[in-house]
């Protein structure tokens, strides 16, 4: 199925346009899932195979206060990179800040970094979810933080990171709530324990930070999320306050912090955060981490914060007792710069295999290869292929052929016209010549078929006998067929027969009337039943129901016409006469009449072109046709039987001369063809 990228309608495979909205459908391309590699239709949101999101989630933008310059376009380009995943959790957690990293993937170190981020967040550096200041009370924050807050930032960059407002009930993250609910002994101590406010001992380095001029340490632009009044102190902090002091009786500061404060040598095995997040372990760690002394740990968050900081951190001031750590180059490159801007936070995926992750790689367009497609072309093309390619190239590069000379073409056209005109002139002269020279050049040929026709009429048609006459020719054939039909109808009328005229051609009844107008029969002798559609089937319909038709001459039903007296079907007529100019019409009448009424006399007046076809029906063994009058020659023979001259005999001289002319032209053409070298 192909899903429409516009309306989502499922369309059949191979469709080019949507059945619902008509939008063009993608063909051959798709979205390749970055997780499993499955090709998905363009417009898919989730992968068909692994349910991974293919369309990146967008970060909701909070409304920009009036007068405040919106961040984004004016600022420097955001730093983008591979966001680290967070721990999947069935509960909905607040979005975790993104941790820029360089390379490598793995569950362990990702979980460790994630735990580090959570721990750091537990220190109170919560930069997310700042509720509106007017709605909540200001937070009772430590002094050092208050000073930092009070220090006016020298640089006023656009808010690099706008955290969407968080509801009141979300002031404390869930994971913090879990920590609260957990028993104190099971709750892993955070690596950085914030001492109670009343007995907080500010480290020296923090004190120096407080004493340092603001120019050296620009105030962090991020806003500490104000907390509600009753939540002035987080519960976990309250628990820490209420917890019994450590065995040493000091504040619950990390060991390395204590040692740092005391200026002692850091332990060899640094504190390491386990996968569980908050459990503190000592032992194995990478070498590059082992190089980081405990005293450098406090700088590590500044060097490689686990989440994007909203304020560019300045270089830590030189503090006595603190030695700058030697950070690897790749880690140094990840140090937040003052010029950098925190990337926009991306929402967390809520379903599929990417659930709990954010900022995953987006799906990319790819061309779908058909199944069974050859991965590549044959290595070496054949010589024939190369020759064809070269020929094609030559043809393409060849300039267009010049047009043929017009004069030569015109000479050829003129010659062709002259040739046709000469042939036409010769034919016309041969046809008109008998008028100028009224000499009978050709005698009337004998026609046994016409003789049989005449005898059949004489024997079967008496006075007042009905005869069915079918006019099956068109006006284009009337010049020949009228010469054939005229002596036949004259004979029938002379016999005193009643003519019942039918036709399966629309023009047939009109042509019959034209001919009858020349013969002038009595009105009671003719009934024109008109045109019957259906060709072969129409013939059968005519044979079965003559009396169900109407007379075109009088408009009366056939049963009320004098010529139709006693006639209901073809079986009631004395003879059937077919005047056909095409072979199919003669065949249809012969087949239907002889099949239904084999003893009914059937004769045909036909065109000369139908004569070869009618010959088999005239065979005495078949006996399907009692006689035929074919063409001008047959008509002339029939006129001779009638004893009166007619047009057919007159035209016969013209026909003979024209035939001789045609034969002569054919011989001349053949001779020219042979002499001219068969060109």
């Amino acid at each position, binding site marked *: 199925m192909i899903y429409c990228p516009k309306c989502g309608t499922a369309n059949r495979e191979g469709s080019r346009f949507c059945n619902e909205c008509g939008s063009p459908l993608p063909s051959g391309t798709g979205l390749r899932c970055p997780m499993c590699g499955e090709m998905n239709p363009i417009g898919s949101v989730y992968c068909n195979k692994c349910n991974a999101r293919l369309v990146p989630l967008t970060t909701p933008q909070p409304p920009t206060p009036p007068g405040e310059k919106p961040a984004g376009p004016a600022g420097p380009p955001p730093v983008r990179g591979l966001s680290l995943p967070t721990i999947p959790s069935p509960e909905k957690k607040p979005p975790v800040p993104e941790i820029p990293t360089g390379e490598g993937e793995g569950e362990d170190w990702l979980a460790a970094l994630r735990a580090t981020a959570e721990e750091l967040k537990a220190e109170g550096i919560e930069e997310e979810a700042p509720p509106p200041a007017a709605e909540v009370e200001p937070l009772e924050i430590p002094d050092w933080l208050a000073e930092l807050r009070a220090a006016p930032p020298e640089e006023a960059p656009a808010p690099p990171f706008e955290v969407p407002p968080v509801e009141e009930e979300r002031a404390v993250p869930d994971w913090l709530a879990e920590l609260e609910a957990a028993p104190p002994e099971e709750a892993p101590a955070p690596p950085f324990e914030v001492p109670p406010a009343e007995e907080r001992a500010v480290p020296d380095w923090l004190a120096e930070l407080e004493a340092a001029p603001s120019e050296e340490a620009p105030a962090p632009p991020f806003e500490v999320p104000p907390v509600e009044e009753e939540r002035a102190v987080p519960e976990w902090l309250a628990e820490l306050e209420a917890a019994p002091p450590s065995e040493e009786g000091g504040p619950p500061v990390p060991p390395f912090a204590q040692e740092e404060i005391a200026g002692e040598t850091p332990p060899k095995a640094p504190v390491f955060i386990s996968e569980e997040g908050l459990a503190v372990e000592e032992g194995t760690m990478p070498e590059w981490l082992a190089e980081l002394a405990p005293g450098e740990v406090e700088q590590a968050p500044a060097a490689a914060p686990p989440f994007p900081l909203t304020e560019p951190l300045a270089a830590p001031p030189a503090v006595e007792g603190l030695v700058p750590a030697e950070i690897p180059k790749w880690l140094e490159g990840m140090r937040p710069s003052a010029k950098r801007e925190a990337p926009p936070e991306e929402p967390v995926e809520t379903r599929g295999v990417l659930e709990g992750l954010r900022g995953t790689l987006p799906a990319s367009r790819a061309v779908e290869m058909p199944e069974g497609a050859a991965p590549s072309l044959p290595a070496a093309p054949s010589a024939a292929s190369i020759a064809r390619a070269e020929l094609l190239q030559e043809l393409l590069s060849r300039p267009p052929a010049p047009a043929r000379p017009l004069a030569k073409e015109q000479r050829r056209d003129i010659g*062709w*016209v002259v040739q*046709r*005109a000469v*042939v*036409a002139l010769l*034919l*016309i002269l041969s*046809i*008109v010549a008998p*008028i100028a020279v009224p000499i009978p050049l050709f005698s009337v040929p004998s026609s046994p078929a016409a003789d049989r026709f005449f005898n059949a009429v004489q024997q079967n048609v008496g006075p007042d006998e009905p005869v069915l006459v079918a006019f099956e020719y068109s006006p*284009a*054939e*009337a*010049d*020949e067929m*009228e*010469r054939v039909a005229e002596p036949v109808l004259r004979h029938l009328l002379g016999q005193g027969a009643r003519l019942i005229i039918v036709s399966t051609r*629309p*023009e047939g009844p*009109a042509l019959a009337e034209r001919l009858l107008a020349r013969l002038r029969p009595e009105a009671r002798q003719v009934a024109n039943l*008109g*045109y019957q*559609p*259906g*060709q*072969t*089937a129409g013939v*059968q319909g005519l044979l079965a129901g003559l009396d169900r*038709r*109407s007379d075109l001459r009088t408009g009366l039903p056939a049963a009320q016409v004098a010529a139709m007296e006693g006639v209901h079907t073809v079986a009631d007529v004395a003879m059937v006469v077919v005047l056909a*100019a095409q072979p199919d019409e003669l*065949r*249809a009448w*012969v*087949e*239907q009449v*002889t*099949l239904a009424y084999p003893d009914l006399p059937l004769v045909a007046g036909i*065109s*000369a*072109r*139908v*004569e*070869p076809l009618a010959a*088999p029906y005239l*065979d*005495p*063994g*078949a006996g*399907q046709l009692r006689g035929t009058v074919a*063409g*001008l020659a047959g008509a002339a023979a029939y006129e001779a039987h009638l004893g009166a001259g007619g*047009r057919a005999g007159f*035209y016969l001289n*013209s*026909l003979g001369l*024209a*035939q001789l002319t*045609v034969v002569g032209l054919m011989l001349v053409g053949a001779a020219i063809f042979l002499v001219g070298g068969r060109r």
Partner: protein
Amino acid sequence: MTTADLVGTVVGVALTLLILSYMIGDNPLYRLALYLLTGAAVGYGVALAVVALFQQVILPLLQGGTAERYGLLVPIVLGLLLLFKGFPRWAPWGNLSTALLIGVGAAVAVAGALLGTVLPQSVASGSLADWLRGGAAGLINSLLIAVGTICALLAFAFTVPRQRALQRLWRGTAGAAGVIGRLFLASAFGAAFAAALTASLSILIGRIYTLIEGVQRLLQMRGG
């Protein structure tokens, strides 16, 4: 001569000349006459169909008895369904009528061809009595028909047996018979061409004499 005869004569002479202008090639005058002929034929056919519909359907439906009206119900419905063929979206509604027309027409044609042409002609050609009826000429005629039919059929044999021995035999018999069959076919085509040429010349003769008679009528009217 009446005015109608005069107009008819003038139009007939003019159209005949336009048609005959095709002797020098295709030209606009010939096309004009051709289009007039086609348009007139179509118009006449439509008018005739309307008249036939009125006489055979409308009048019986209005004036006929109950049985006649019910009898016309089926053809009327089928005819109306056939009108849907003019609209591609509703064309399938006319399939029933089309199927009926084609089915009935094919059945009538096939039955007529088998029983009215093939069977009688085969019986007539294979009857020994008929062979002997005409004497020597009849016998020769019947033999020519039989030999010509077989040889003409073998002229269309374009395959040979697989066996080499039969191949030579086949080429010696069927091949030779095929050559004879081609002679019969050529003769038949020649006869058909001659018949068609004769018919065409007959029509041309009729047109030219009609043209001459028309001119003579016009000259007589002018003279007298």
